[in-house]
């Protein structure tokens, strides 16, 4: 597939939109279905392989309107069913189609606090867009109304126009809430609780707030200035952000409530414990968790060889284990750092890959090589402990299991060595045990996730939790939804 420039896409959209507007008649459903689905303008793959700047450039105003006009405004709105925070999608898309961007963003913000982020990173193809009638009619989810891209456009417009004013804050109540972590779950709680006039202090272990959005998801997918703008908005509301403060070590969770005068606490510490494969050779030099690799680059800026003090391994041939967003991000980062070849090794087939489809596509365009139905068996190294290769096994799809998915089973004797100097393990994260370990009475599942009831409350009164620490590694939108729920409970508690 050859790359279409932004200019070409913009010109086509302009022409098509003018034709529709000139007719001055409402569109029939058939006409709506006939509108060309708007492609996301992107940087040329050859150029972006060498830069960290954002790959997806965002719709033009005409593209956004045209794409919105594809929506059939279904009365039963199946898309809303697919949205974890139930944004009124038909309503905002309608406003966007009429060119009333201000109204569109207003509707989104009733349910979502981070539309600029979610428009970029939500797995829309398994949420709103999976249910879309347009996609069904055209027999292709990829042709569903691109809700996420429209969302991104209207949210970016608002920020760029300087119209994203921080929400108003009710008079001070004198109540104080501690929010642990600064990821999407915590940001949502901070905003919703602060709105009610309660004092909010956020605690972040790292030197910069934002959670995975800052240290994990790369700049080329989610520019850091967007996250910074969200944090600044919180600060403008009067939320205090304390970085370099690790709860459980700098201060125990219970001490915040018992000694420091906080009336309630929310734990949104994410799923920050990298899983390893448990195979031979995993501690050789040149094997990294995706967390480490991505943190070195995103948070510590190791790609800026001139200015950054944090080093990054200079790889020639990289294998990334896994098939999720994290794996795609790590592989595409390795490409940008100058690796000659980057391989994704995944045990199942592309259909099962949990990564956003768009990112899989981008990775392929950038030259990442996919090895499906293969898995690592052991990593081999030389006498200096440096990785020299990875022994892999081939798999085939066996009988369907209970969930109906065909299980991959290994092909006996199919071992082969893939010569690589770097292996990045991106097979998921467990929950960080620090807070449960240092907070007596806090109940967790056997995987270490904090247990909450349906109000978001943990086993300890006045302590709430949400996001990845409760769900296991999940998504930004789910974290935000959990934050909303916990914030509502905290606000109810503090009212009483």
């Amino acid at each position, binding site marked *: 597939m050859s790359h279409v420039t932004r200019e070409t896409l913009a010109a086509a959209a302009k022409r098509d939109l003018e034709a529709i507007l000139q007719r001055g008649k409402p569109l029939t459903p058939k006409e709506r279905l006939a509108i060309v689905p708007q492609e996301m303008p992107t940087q040329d793959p050859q150029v972006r392989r060498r830069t960290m700047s954002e790959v997806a450039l965002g719709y033009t105003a005409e593209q956004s309107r045209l794409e919105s006009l594809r929506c059939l405004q279904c009365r039963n709105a199946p898309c809303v069913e697919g949205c974890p925070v139930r944004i009124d999608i038909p309503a905002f898309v309608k406003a966007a189609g009429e060119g009333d961007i201000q109204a569109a963003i207003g509707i989104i913000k009733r349910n979502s606090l981070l539309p600029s982020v979610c428009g970029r990173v939500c797995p829309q193809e398994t949420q709103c867009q999976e249910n879309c009638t347009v996609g069904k009619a055209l027999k292709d989810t990829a042709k569903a109304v691109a809700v996420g891209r429209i969302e991104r456009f209207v949210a970016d417009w608002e920020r760029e126009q300087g119209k994203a004013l921080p929400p108003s804050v009710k008079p001070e109540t004198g109540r104080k809430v501690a929010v642990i972590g600064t990821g999407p779950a915590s940001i949502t709680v901070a905003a919703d609780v602060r709105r009610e006039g309660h004092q909010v202090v956020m605690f972040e272990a790292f030197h*910069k707030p934002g959670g995975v959005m800052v240290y994990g998801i790369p700049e080329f997918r989610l520019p850091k200035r967007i996250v*910074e703008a969200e944090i600044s908005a919180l600060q403008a509301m009067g939320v205090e952000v304390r970085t370099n403060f690790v709860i459980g*070590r*700098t201060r125990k969770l219970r001490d915040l409530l018992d000694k420091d005068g906080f009336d309630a606490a929310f734990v949104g510490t994410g799923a920050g414990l*990298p899983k390893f494969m448990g195979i031979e050779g995993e501690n050789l030099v*040149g094997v990294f968790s995706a967390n*480490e690799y991505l943190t070195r680059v995103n948070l510590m800026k190791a790609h800026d060889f001139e200015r*950054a003090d*944090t*080093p990054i391994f200079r790889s020639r041939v990289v294998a990334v284990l896994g098939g999720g967003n994290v794996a795609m991000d790590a592989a595409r980062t390795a490409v940008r750092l100058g690796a000659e070849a980057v391989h994704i090794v995944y045990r199942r087939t592309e259909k099962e890959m949990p990564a956003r489809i768009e990112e899989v596509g981008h990775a392929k365009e950038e030259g990442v090589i996919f090895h499906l139905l293969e898995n690592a068996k052991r990593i081999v190294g030389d006498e200096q402990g440096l990785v020299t290769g990875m022994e892999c096994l081939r798999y085939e799809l066996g009988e369907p299991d209970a969930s109906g998915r065909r299980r991959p089973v290994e092909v006996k004797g199919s071992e082969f060595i893939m010569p690589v100097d770097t292996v990045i393990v991106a097979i998921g994260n467990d929950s960080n045990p620090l807070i449960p370990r240092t907070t007596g009475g806090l109940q967790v599942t056997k995987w270490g996730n904090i247990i909450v009831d349906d109000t978001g409350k943990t086993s300890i009164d006045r302590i709430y939790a949400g996001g990845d620490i409760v769900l296991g590694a999940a998504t930004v939108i789910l974290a935000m939804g959990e934050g909303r729920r916990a914030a509502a409970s905290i606000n109810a508690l503090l009212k009483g």
Partner: protein
Amino acid sequence: MNAPPFPAIIPGYYRYSYRLILMNRILSKTQLSDDVFMMKVEAPLIARERLPGQFIILQINNDFGERIPLTIADADAEQGWIAIIFQTVGRTTHLLAEKNVGDTIESVLGPLGHPTHIERVGTVVCVGGGIGVAPLHPIVKGMKAAGNRVIVIMGARTKSLLIMEEQMRALADELIICTDDGSCGRKALVTEPLKEICGREPKPACVVAIGPPIMMKFCAEATRPFGVRTLVSLNTIMIDGTGMCGGCRVTVGGETKFVCVDGPEFDGHKVDFDNMMKRLKAYRRQEEHAHEQCHLEQAARQKGAAVA
């Protein structure tokens, strides 16, 4: 430098907000040897919570600086300071050494890691090599306070590199100094007196060894035949220090452990030191380059200052 005022809305101002609570101001600075410095840093929250054996992670420049772990050598909860002792081996430690009393350190995170398990066990041998004497100090203090008989063995290449001799002498029931060149104390490696002490009757109850990896490895080998429990404190490459990246991992008894959260102390008889030493060298080439660069820049700055 004072903390900036508390502005209502400045994008990106969060960088400064922590200073309201954690000033991280340098209260004193002492040069202990050619390239070893001690600093007292204002950090009341860390001073309040910290226990022997724990460490901090510090960063000089929040945008481009690296995060490095340093053991807390001493602390005073009442006065709200912690002491760090460091050797100028890389870029960050060089920049740190150039700071003066009254300057602040942009980021200081802690206290991290499990504290040393301190209890009354009888006789404890504490072995410190080079700069490792610094992290050993609070442990010696704690072990002594718990009512143990504490034998301290200190080792260095040469006399001028020995640090904290006074403090150790004041605490230890028995102090043995070893130098490679015999310029002070015995001309021996620390393992030599260690073996002798393990051979005494009754055997010491436990050994704590902190120093260069190779020293810890040989201390563990020295005590193994005597079956004396030997703790080592590992100082691997770290980023977050909270268990998030796995960069600090080591193999202990065949299992992968994260030094920052599972350690920093481990059973020396189970640590795979060879693997750890290889991992420590992962960025050697880049680090050597940075170090060299650092000296060049420093020389240039000094020259500049001399001209001005």
